[in-house]
């Protein structure tokens, strides 16, 4: 009779790799709460759930397409030029992304101000692309990019929801029975503090699950 340990050791390595990529990006090594990536728009702009949804959409579209197109830039080109090409691709992807989002939600896009175009120089495109994504095989890279972006989006949405409830006592216009409202947490300093507490909370949860 096979033991549970033996069965576990026979798990398909490809499935294990996929599981690790998913768990790392969504949870253990989350790009925001562990990696500290693309913090600026979250801290300043993601003050409500609505803003968080817009940020997640804009970030996902720009980052995904820029990274996929950039992965075809030949490695023969020197790093100095490659990095310019990545941001150049990002700025080209920004044009249709801006037009589409501006067509559907113009007032929200204009509220985003400088944080929308700044997404083209985000850490995923400028640094993580060279250090992690483009060193992997195409299939692994695609999976890694998708779950990295998802990991970012999930935290942005959780963060926007918590922040809106704490700082306004409302969620998407619905008044909630919140006993205390800290309106200051809707300001940039509040964003840093909430993000710091969430990062500590995630680390605590990861520690607890490791011990189990």
């Amino acid at each position, binding site marked *: 009779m096979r033991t549970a340990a033996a069965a576990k050791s026979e798990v398909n390595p490809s499935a294990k790799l996929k599981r690790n990529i998913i768990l790392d990006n969504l949870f253990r090594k989350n790009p925001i709460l*562990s990696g*500290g*990536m*693309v*913090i*600026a728009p979250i*801290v*300043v*702009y993601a003050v409500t759930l609505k803003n968080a949804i817009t940020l997640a959409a804009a970030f996902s579209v720009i980052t995904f397409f820029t990274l996929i197109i950039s992965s075809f830039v030949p490695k023969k080109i020197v790093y*100095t*030029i490659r*990095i*310019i090409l990545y*941001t*150049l691709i*990002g*700025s*080209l992807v*920004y*044009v249709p992304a*801006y*037009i589409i989002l501006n067509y559907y939600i113009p007032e929200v896009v204009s509220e985003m*101000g*400088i*944080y929308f*175009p*700044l997404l*083209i*120089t*985000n*850490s995923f495109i*400028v640094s993580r692309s060279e250090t992690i994504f483009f060193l992997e095989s195409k299939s692994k890279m695609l999976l890694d990019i998708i779950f990295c972006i998802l990991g970012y989006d999930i935290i942005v949405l959780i963060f926007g929801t918590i922040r809106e409830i704490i700082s306004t006592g409302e969620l998407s216009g619905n008044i909630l029975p919140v006993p205390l409202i800290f309106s*200051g947490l809707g*300001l*940039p*300093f*509040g*964003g*840093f*503090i909430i*993000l*710091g*507490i969430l*990062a*500590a*909370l995630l*680390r*605590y949860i990861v*520690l607890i699950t490791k011990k189990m």
Partner: protein
Amino acid sequence: MEFIKQIIIASFTGILIENTVFSRALGTSTLISVSKNRKNILGFGLCAVYITTVTSIICFFIDRLINYYKLSYIYMPLIYVLILGFVYIVTLLLLWKFFYNLFFRMKKYVHMSAFNCAVFGALFLNHKYCSSLAEYIGHGIGISLGFILAVYMVSIVYDKLYSENVPYSFRGYPLILIYIGILSMAFYGLVGRQLLY
């Protein structure tokens, strides 16, 4: 004289009122990596001031040209990337040609200071809030000096934020964010209002 006065006022605005990190959270990820080593601050700071100032000057003239076009804001990131890329390459070439020994030491700083949100954000903020060449230069210098101030303020307590005495869950990155948040609160008190973005 008026030109110098405008530069100084715009610089102080960039450092204290519109501090890139504490008021706008720009370049926070870069700040966390640069503040690890205090030796990096000088090299990084010099490069950041140089690149922001030079690109701000070029952008002043380019902004005058593109402002006439109705949809210029859509293509602005593309234009700014081209300018930043141009300054980045020219800087590396000049270092390689005239300061060959310095080139290998400064290469990583040039890269770090050219492609980060603080420098890129400075160009958009210049476009939004500045009108004269002196303001562009002063604001550019101020934003990069403000960024260096933020890096320095984090680096001086870096060891304490990573101390064994801090509970594991808060040690390092989470505490850096809370610390920046507290400093940001102080800067908010100094300015007295939230900045437009």
